[in-house]
Every structure is written in structure tokens, then in C-alpha cells.
């Protein structure tokens, strides 16, 4: 079994003169929830389509679950919820799942029970017999999510999966993503809602003008914990001592700011200060939000494409 669920090397896609994806190299390990972030027109959706085989690359290549991009058979192990979640609206949710289940090659035996389980999971069991055209936006998205989970996929692509959902629906998506992770599946999440990404993803990549400009481990991102101390007195010796607990130590009168690697060093820092007889009036720590990262990495130039 390959180590990576997704691997690409110098993936490029041009539409006429417009370069949608330029030299994209990614490696998403199996079992990881991976967030793909970028401004509008950055090439996120095209990347997703390249990975799903909906669009062929102009150059470069890659693999999904060990199969080369564009491979048809591997799609039986992939789930996909498209951004616009438009389906055949003359079908009921139950019929939609049945049809897509058969397309996936799922055997008829056990399919009905599987479908009922998914309908229950996304909260559509009472409306499952109604045509999709009578559904609200959120209900259609829930039906699409159930469709993406058919056949217990090993890799799930979610393109803006919460755009039409209410807070409860968003919680549902978050739970579903966590369940997928627990079951060892990989998730490729394309979303503008940075809070959602922050709450669910293990790692994120920032894409700009069709290129990945930065990758970030969310769980253990080094230097992302901002610590602020208000102390009784501050001298150079103290600042030198604080450097052993983190980086970027700066002083503003009795206020000291620094970056720490993790929250686990905070009690030790407090003990060290108190041990030296320094009065500690305040100790605050704050992790840099994904939104702050986003703004910092993307900079002022957030023009599309």
C-alpha cells in the first residue's frame, strides 16, 4: 500500500493562455485530513479536478491511492462532494444513492442497508423519498455528502462542503471528517471557511496563482504559539534566560513577547520565573489563527488567478 493518498509532481494545467495550476507538487499521507486554501481563482478547484481525473494535466503527473491520475478503477475508492452539489433532481435522495452506489460497482446485496445508514447519518431519513428538486440547499448538500461517503471510500474530496449548511450541518460535516480520519481514510478539504479547516485539518497548503506557496502542520506548527508576559522587572539577563524557552523574544518595558513551540513549556516557564524571584502579573498565550496565517502568507496581492 503506498504511503501517500495523493502525490503530485510539477502538475500544470493551462486553459489557453491562462495557467490555472502551475508546478503543483503535493504529498498527502494516508489517513490525513488535508486542507487546501487559497483566494478565489488560485487554482484550487482545478487542482481538485486534476486529482479526480475530470481535467487532464497539461504537464506533470501524480497519483491518487497509488494509481496514476485519470485512472478509472481507482475512483471506486474515492468519494467526491462537488462545490455546486448539483445532482439529477428528479431523483429522490434514496434513488440518487442507489444509482451512484451501482455506478461505484457496489453489490446490490447490502446496498439498501448501506444507503439507509448513510441517510440516517446525514439526517435525511425522513425526506429520502422526496425528489431532490424539493430539497433546500442544505438538504441537497447533505444528500451530496451521503453520496460522497458511499462505499466507505479511502479518500474523500470535499469541495466547500459546508457552504450551504446551517451550524448543525457544519457540525455534522466536522463529525463526518473526524470519523473518516478515525477509520483511516484521507480527506482533501477545499474550503474558504478557515475556522472549519482549522477545526478539522491536520495540515494545510496555501495555494496562490496555481502554486503551493506554504504548507503548515496545524497540530504541531512550530512557532505558532504567541506568549505574552507582564513581569515586575525585566533585564537583559532575564531575556537571555527566556530565550531558552522559545524564539523571537522581544521587550516593551515590562511586557515580554515570544514564540513558544508548545503549551507544555508554559508551566516550566512560570516555575523558572518564580524561582528567579520575578513577579509574574500576567502570562497569556495565543495560537496564531489560520486566518492570520492566511493573510500573512497571501499578502496584499489576492487577485484571482
Amino acid at each position: 500500500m503506498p504511503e501517500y493518498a495523493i502525490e503530485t509532481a510539477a502538475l500544470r494545467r493551462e486553459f489557453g493562455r491562462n495557467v490555472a495550476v502551475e508546478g503543483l507538487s503535493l504529498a498527502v499521507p494516508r489517513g490525513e485530513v488535508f486542507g487546501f486554501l487559497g483566494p478565489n481563482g488560485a487554482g484550487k478547484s482545478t487542482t481538485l479536478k486534476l486529482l479526480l481525473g475530470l481535467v487532464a494535466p497539461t504537464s506533470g503527473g501524480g497519483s491518487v491511492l497509488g494509481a496514476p491520475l485519470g485512472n478509472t478503477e481507482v475512483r471506486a475508492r474515492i468519494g467526491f462532494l462537488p462545490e455546486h452539489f448539483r445532482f439529477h433532481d428528479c431523483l429522490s435522495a434514496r434513488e440518487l444513492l442507489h444509482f451512484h452506489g451501482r455506478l461505484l460497482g457496489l453489490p446490490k446485496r447490502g446496498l439498501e442497508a448501506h444507503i439507509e445508514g448513510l441517510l440516517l447519518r446525514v439526517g435525511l431519513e425522513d425526506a429520502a423519498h422526496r425528489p431532490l428538486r424539493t430539497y433546500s440547499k442544505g438538504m441537497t448538500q447533505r444528500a451530496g455528502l451521503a453520496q460522497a461517503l458511499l462505499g466507505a471510500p479511502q479518500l474523500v474530496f470535499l469541495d466547500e462542503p459546508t457552504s450551504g449548511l446551517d451550524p448543525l450541518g457544519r457540525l455534522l460535516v466536522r463529525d463526518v471528517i473526524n470519523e473518516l480520519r478515525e477509520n483511516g481514510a484521507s480527506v482533501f478539504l477545499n474550503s474558504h471557511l478557515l475556522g472549519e479547516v482549522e477545526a478539522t485539518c491536520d495540515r494545510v497548503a496555501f495555494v496562490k496563482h496555481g502554486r503551493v506557496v506554504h504548507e503548515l502542520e496545524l497540530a504541531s506548527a512550530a512557532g505558532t504559539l504567541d506568549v505574552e508576559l507582564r513581569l515586575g522587572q525585566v533585564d537583559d539577563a532575564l531575556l537571555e534566560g527566556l530565550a531558552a524557552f522559545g524564539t523571537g523574544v522581544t521587550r516593551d518595558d515590562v511586557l515580554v513577547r515570544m514564540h513558544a513551540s508548545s503549551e507544555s513549556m508554559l508551566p516550566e516557564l512560570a516555575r523558572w520565573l518564580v524561582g528567579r524571584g520575578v513577579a509574574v502579573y500576567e502570562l497569556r498565550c495565543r495560537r496564531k489563527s489560520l486566518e492570520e496565517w492566511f493573510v500573512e502568507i497571501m499578502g496584499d496581492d489576492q487577485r484571482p488567478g
Partner: protein
Amino acid sequence: MVLRGALLVARLTWLETRRRRIALAALICGLLFLAVFATAMYFGFNIAQEQGPGNAVEMRIAATVLTVAGFYVVNFLVTAVAILLPIDSLSGEIGSGVIQTLASKPVDRAAIVVGKWLAYLAMTAAYLALLGGGVVLSMRFFADYVAPSVIVPMGLMLLGAAVMLSITIAGGVRLSTITNGIVAFGFYGVAFIAGWMEQILSMFNNSTARYVGTVVSLFSPSDTMWRRAAFEMQPLATAVLQNGPFGVASVPSATMIVWALAYVVIVLWFAAWQFRHRPL
């Protein structure tokens, strides 16, 4: 795998056409035509008989011409259905994004094209059988006339409709719905005019006009199939000698039938090939 996927897509297409009431609308129009046609035949032949026993040969010629006229309308309706049923199918699903969920499944894209084509062909065939059968029965009951051949002509008409169906499916891969409609009816219109040109000018032994007509028929062989069908469904004398709109002064050859079959296969293959390579 292509066959399994094609059959699943065909089933979905059938279900969708039925539920969107497209099939119902076509059915109502077809039944309306049959009602008008049957009523006209009933009164026409009853009045003729009330006026006394006429010339049997004239009556037979009239029945033949009216049968061909009925089938002419049937052919038009069936061709329209073959164009209009699939006109929004691929382009609409591509435009709305519905196709993305379908094409990301482990199914060859060719299966999507073939599945839709199969479903629409089956519907077109059923429509032809209904309308053609209605014309035949009307003539049998009200004029006591049965055309010398019905099955072969209807097969040829279905082949002509399949030509238009394939063109429309292929157009839907790259063109928008409206553009596709214009192109499809353009193909039909050009073939129609070329057919008439070939018919009329062949009476004057104009070889250039016949040549142009044949070339256009190679380009779009739907109308040619109708002319061959019209030739097959009436006695030789009526078919070749009458100068009316349903006479067949220039009979399309058997080679043209083979070409129409090959044309359908080529266009369908082209549609599948295009769809496989199209970004979705």
C-alpha cells in the same frame, strides 16, 4: 465495464426523461397528430365511398400517397424528438456541474455517452412504432389499405433519426444547448434542402445537382433515409412516376444505407472520444 455503466446511465436517462414529462409532452403531440390523421382518413374515405364507387386504381394511389404523407409527418416528428430529447442532456449536465459527480465514478466516460444514446434511441424507436403503427392502422381501418412494406421503411426512418440523435449527442459534448440545437437543425435542414434539390433536378437529368445532393447526403444522411423509406413503402410505379412531394425520382442506394449506419457509429465514437478528452 462500459456496458454496465452504459446500461445504468441509460436507465437514469429514461427515468429522467419520464419524470421531467418530456416523454409525456412528445406522446401527447404524437397522439394529437394521430387523432387528426385518423379523423381526416375516416371522413376522406367515407365521403369518397358515399359519392359512389370510384376508380379503384385512383383510390389506391390516393391511399398510397396519403400513407406516405402520414409517414412524412411521422418522420418529421420522430426526427424532432431525436434532436430535442438529447439536446440539453450532455451540455446541460456539463453546464450545471451535474456531470462532475457522474464522471468521477469508476465508469468510462464513453459509457455516459453511449448510455444516453441508447436510452434516447429506445425512446425514439418506441415513438416511431407508436406513430407509424397509428398511421398503418388508420389506413387499414378507414381506407382498407396496407402499404406493401412497413417494417423496412420504419427501420430506415429510425436510422435517419439515429443519425440526428448521434449528431445532437456529439454536439452536446462541446456546444451549449442553444448552439447545439441550431447546429443539429442546420444539419437536418441542409440535408432536407439537398434532398429536394436532388429530387427535383434529377427529373431534368441535371448530374451536377445530383452530385451536390449526394455529397450533402454523405455529410448528413438523415433525409436520404426518409427518401429510401418512402420508396420502400409504396409500389414502384407510384414511387418513381409520381411528381408529387412524396415521389422518389432519385432512389438512394443500398450503399447509402450502409453509409448511414457507419455514420452513426463514427459520430457516436467521435462523441465518446471528445467527451473523454473534454475538461469537466
